[in-house]
């Protein structure tokens, strides 16, 4: 590991100034991904800004009924928070479906969003990878890509984003709050991560020197029926092969009043299924309508040689979750 300077920042201002003063610096939260990547030689920062001591470790209800989650709230604490379990069950379920108890105790909300792909070519510095070394090629495209993207990938990169949490946040219309030398701004979680295009080295729209300060869960999706379901190679402690987060609110006449649907492990970012949502809104909440809408969304899939199974898997997960949400007695 390359030697690096270190600052224990105690205010957001101090952290942002340190990031500006040390181009290429990284923020250290739980370190569960960053420290691993530093050991692998994938990340080689010359300076770390520790953000664990920033006053961003609380979950607070705002006056408009939304819920603000500080960037350093640990994944385990967020999953266990009574307001999250009560109002945004998909988020709690997604967090608990990810990683292990030890990792969730360390991992932060901001760090979860900024974690890197687990593509084995990205993690192995002896292999070509356009995300790690732009222009070096993609080893996965003609190599081992069973876990890789079926939606929105490019000639340059077929990696997926590994987060479970972010998929639930995308379906719940959450926003990421950012702070940098140019001030504060906020971005929908569904637009925070990028598609790879010809710049796969950029995972997100975060600007150099910007810090994630929190995530806001809106009042509009609070207390609506929501759920997360994940398929993986073993029963626990594995990344998703495909996952689905859904929010579904029915009118008194049984039609779809409000719907949010997002897929995980299918793309370079949580895949907000806007085509499916449009098809469902105002229509009947029936298995046929769900199947029609999900098929409309997954029509855009372009599977690779060895990952075509993901399309059918994601379809089945989505139909199961939507059907269960439409049948409250069974959830």
């Amino acid at each position: 590991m390359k030697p690096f300077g270190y600052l224990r920042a105690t205010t957001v201002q101090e952290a942002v100034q340190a990031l500006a003063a040390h181009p290429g610096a990284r923020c250290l939260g739980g370190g569960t991904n960053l420290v691993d990547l530093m050991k692998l030689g994938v990340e080689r920062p010359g300076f770390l800004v520790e953000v664990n001591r920033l006053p961003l470790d609380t979950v607070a209800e705002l006056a408009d009924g939304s819920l603000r989650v500080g960037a350093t709230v640990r994944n385990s604490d967020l999953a266990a928070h009574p307001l999250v379990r009560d109002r945004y069950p998909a988020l709690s379920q997604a967090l608990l479906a990810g990683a292990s108890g030890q990792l969730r105790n360390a991992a932060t909300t901001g760090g979860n969003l900024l974690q890197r792909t687990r593509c084995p070519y990205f993690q192995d510095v002896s292999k070509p990878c356009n995300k790690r070394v732009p222009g070096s090629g993609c080893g996965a495209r003609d190599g081992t890509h069973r876990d890789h993207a079926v939606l929105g990938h490019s000639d340059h990169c077929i990696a997926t984003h590994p987060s479970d949490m972010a998929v639930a946040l995308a379906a719940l219309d959450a926003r990421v709050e950012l702070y940098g030398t140019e001030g504060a701004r906020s971005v929908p979680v569904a637009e925070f991560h990028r598609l790879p295009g010809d710049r796969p080295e950029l995972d997100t729209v975060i600007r150099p020197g910007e810090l994630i300060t929190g995530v806001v869960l809106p009042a509009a999706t609070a207390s609506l029926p929501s759920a997360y379901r994940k398929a993986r190679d073993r029963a626990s402690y594995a990344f998703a092969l495909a996952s689905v987060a859904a929010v579904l609110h029915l009118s008194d006449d049984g039609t779809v009043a409000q719907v949010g649907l997002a897929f995980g492990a299918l793309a370079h970012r949580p895949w907000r299924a806007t085509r499916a949502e449009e098809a469902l809104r105002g229509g009947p909440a029936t298995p046929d309508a769900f199947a029609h809408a999900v098929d409309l969304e997954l029509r855009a899939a372009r599977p690779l040689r060895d990952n075509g199974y993901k399309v059918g898997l994601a379809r089945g997960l989505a139909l199961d979750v939507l059907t269960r949400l439409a049948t409250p007695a069974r959830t």
Partner: protein
Amino acid sequence: MDSSPHDHGDDGADSAPPAAYRSEVTLSVNGKPHTLLIDHRRVLLDLLREDLDLTGAKKGCDHGQCGACTVLVDGRRVNSCLQLAVSLDGCDVLTVEGLTEGDQLHPLQRAFLDRDAFQCGYCTPGQICSAVGVLAEAAAGHPSHATGPATPPGRPVPLDAAEIRERLSGNLCRCGAYPHIVEAVQDVAL
């Protein structure tokens, strides 16, 4: 007060790094305070094993995937291989060596013996520290992937075998002693 004269580089360098790459850290390990000048690259696992001669926590994968290095920091179980020691200033670390009180084994240590919950034993300190964390998390009402949706928030979660298996999934046992490990934890959880 201890100090660390050793080099901590992974790159094979044999000289101490410049001051910009080291910081003073004060932390408590098994109730004993230590103030150390630490290479920023030092992870907690290496600090425990190589500087403090606490070899209970084991290095398995060194990437947070096996759980053999599990210790408790401020009462919460974490993978010590992924914790930079410099980030733990002011923290309380508890390792498997700190679980005994005199000659008195921790109830989980006793249960692992009674249930023969190991074969080679390499993963055992991590399993036991992780189980200590599991008991505290369940008592504090933390749910798991195996917890039913009807379980009320904020109340202790009963630990059946399915809960224990799910909550301990971050601790691998390559000998496959899982059935006895689950029984041992269940003995203490009941």
